[in-house]
């Protein structure tokens, strides 16, 4: 039983990483209706920016805020410059665009900062949290930040005019335009916010997985899986999905014989798919009703 609780705790700790990423994925899905394959790379690039700032002697929190602002602006710029011309192109062409963006960012980061692994500082310290060997204060801090982000987003979307406008633009663009919402800019804003959230995720994840151009590869897959499991229309679902995926993965690695590190991912994905077969819109997602 102790093994079980310990593994669940460890799962929650890794789950916090996935939850962060899943939140960014859901944000952008809300704004543009596709999964952005380059999201992880964008987060990685932001994290490198903050690392570079710290190398230049900027303090952690100043670097954090500058990176946040930079990511927000960069997200909007990417949307305006690269993806706005593709609005009328087919969906699959847009997906190809994401893959292109992925290649560009990954390769540029590799050229600027090379592929060696770098240490990344944490503001929370890394001593054991409340005497538990499995969760460090950093991981506890991560869970805290994720929950705070979630609350912030909830209030933003539920109680501010601009949040309402973004929701309207995402769900019924035609009607939103009729009541005077600039839907095109709402999409750009969605990109900006998603990139900023992604950069927070990146900066929180970097102390755990270490900083390098390919650091987000695995994390993004789990982030997607978590977002899909929780339901792509629900930020709350994304966070719960993140924790569940973390726990799934750890328990599968512990209890199913013959599962090494290599098979953890396929098994976690298989479990998620079994859940989706029963609940096709994810655990907390809404069923989309199609008009014929």
């Amino acid at each position, binding site marked *: 039983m102790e093994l079980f609780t310990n593994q669940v705790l460890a799962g929650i700790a890794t789950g916090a990483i996935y939850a962060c990423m899943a939140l960014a994925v859901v944000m952008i899905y*809300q704004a543009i209706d596709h*999964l952005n394959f380059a999201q992880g790379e964008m987060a990685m690039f932001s994290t490198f920016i903050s690392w570079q700032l710290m190398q230049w002697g900027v303090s952690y929190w100043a670097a954090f805020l500058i990176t946040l602002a930079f990511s927000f602006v960069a997200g909007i710029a990417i949307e305006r410059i*690269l993806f706005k*011309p*593709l609005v*009328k*192109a*087919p*969906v*699959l*062409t847009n*997906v*190809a*665009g994401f*893959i*292109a*963006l*992925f*290649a*560009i960012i*990954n*390769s*540029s980061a*590799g*050229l600027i900062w090379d592929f060696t692994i770098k240490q990344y500082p944490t503001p929370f310290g890394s001593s054991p949290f409340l005497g538990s060997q499995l969760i460090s204060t950093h991981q506890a801090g991560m869970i805290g930040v994720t929950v705070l982000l979630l609350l912030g987003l909830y209030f933003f*979307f539920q109680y501010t005019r601009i949040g309402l406008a973004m*929701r*309207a633009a*995402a*769900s*019924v*663009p*035609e009607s939103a335009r009729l009541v005077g919402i600039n839907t095109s800019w709402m999409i750009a804003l969605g990109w900006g916010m998603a990139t900023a959230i992604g950069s927070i995720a990146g900066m929180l994840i970097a102390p755990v997985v270490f900083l390098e151009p390919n650091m987000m590869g695995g994390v993004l*897959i789990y982030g*997607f*899986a978590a977002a*899909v499991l929780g339901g*792509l*229309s*629900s*930020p709350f679902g994304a966070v719960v999905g993140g924790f569940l995926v973390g726990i799934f993965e750890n328990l599968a690695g512990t209890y199913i014989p*013959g599962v090494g590190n*290599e098979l953890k*991912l*396929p098994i976690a*994905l*298989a479990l*998620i*798919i079994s859940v*989706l*077969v029963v609940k*096709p819109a*994810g655990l907390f997602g*809404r*069923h*989309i*009703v*199609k*008009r*014929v």
Partner: protein
Amino acid sequence: MSAAEEVVAEGHQAVEAVPKRAMTLGTGTSLLVLAVLLVVPVFVKNFIIFQMTMLLIYGLAVLALNILTGGSGQFSLGQSAFYAVGAYTSAVLMEYFNVNYALTIPVSAAVCFGFGYLFGKPALRLSGVYLALATFALATAMPQLLKLNFLEHWTGGVQGLVVTKPDAPFGLPMSQDMWLYYFTLIVTVAIYVFSVNLLRSRSGRAFMAIRDNEIAASSMGVNVALYKTLAFGVSAGITGVAGSLGAIAVQFVAPDSYTITLAISLFLGMVVGGVGWLPGSFVGAAFIIFVPNMAESISKGLSGAVFGVLLFLVIYLVPHGARQIAILGQQFAGKLRRN
């Protein structure tokens, strides 16, 4: 987040509706292309012949994805898994059972058809992003499954298997590469003709009806579940054949040749060639084989970025892929004729 989101705007489709006549080339053009493909190898070096063989093989794999996505509207990131199954089927049959390479191809097709059909069953309940995740899971799982200990006796584990390259039969005076090219060409033409006819048949119309409107299709009496799984089966079968040919051409199979990167390349090939336009598959295959090499020769350190920029250029200029160029060409030819 709000109830209003439940209603999705009408006419918003993941895959465009391509009419079936627009899916192929005219007879004259097809024969011309075939003639070029037949003659060129006589005049070029062995390495180029090898690259042309790979072009046909990847073209087949992209064609298979095109039938699934462009034809029936289902999205797959798991094509690399079917490709791997095809490749391993051929490799194991040839190396352990001494089966003739040509005979392993129908076997791979059958094995992969079955595998794809079965995979299509649970995937029936999923669509769009969810289906993409499910097929993605298959693609990430496949290399790990091939490395499993109890399969190692057959698959050779991480090391993979070496496959012998066949000689030209009947004492034909041809190099191995050239023979393999012509062999691949025969298989490719056969599968291409099969695919064109499939999409023109009753089943093909059923695929397209499902792609354009699933609910309308089912109310017209189309057995949606059957045709969706069938599309998966056929696509997997063709991908399996491509995998077999690939294994024979490269003379080597290893789990890490069949990762998600392959599936993503095939997807890019489909987009560049034009979703739903079958001849475009081969244009797309050329893109995914030659453009990464080109990018590497432009800049070693930034090859990924150069590739990305080139890809962006292509999708800006022709968001509908090579099909757009073909349509423009046709219109231009039509104008010339009228003048």
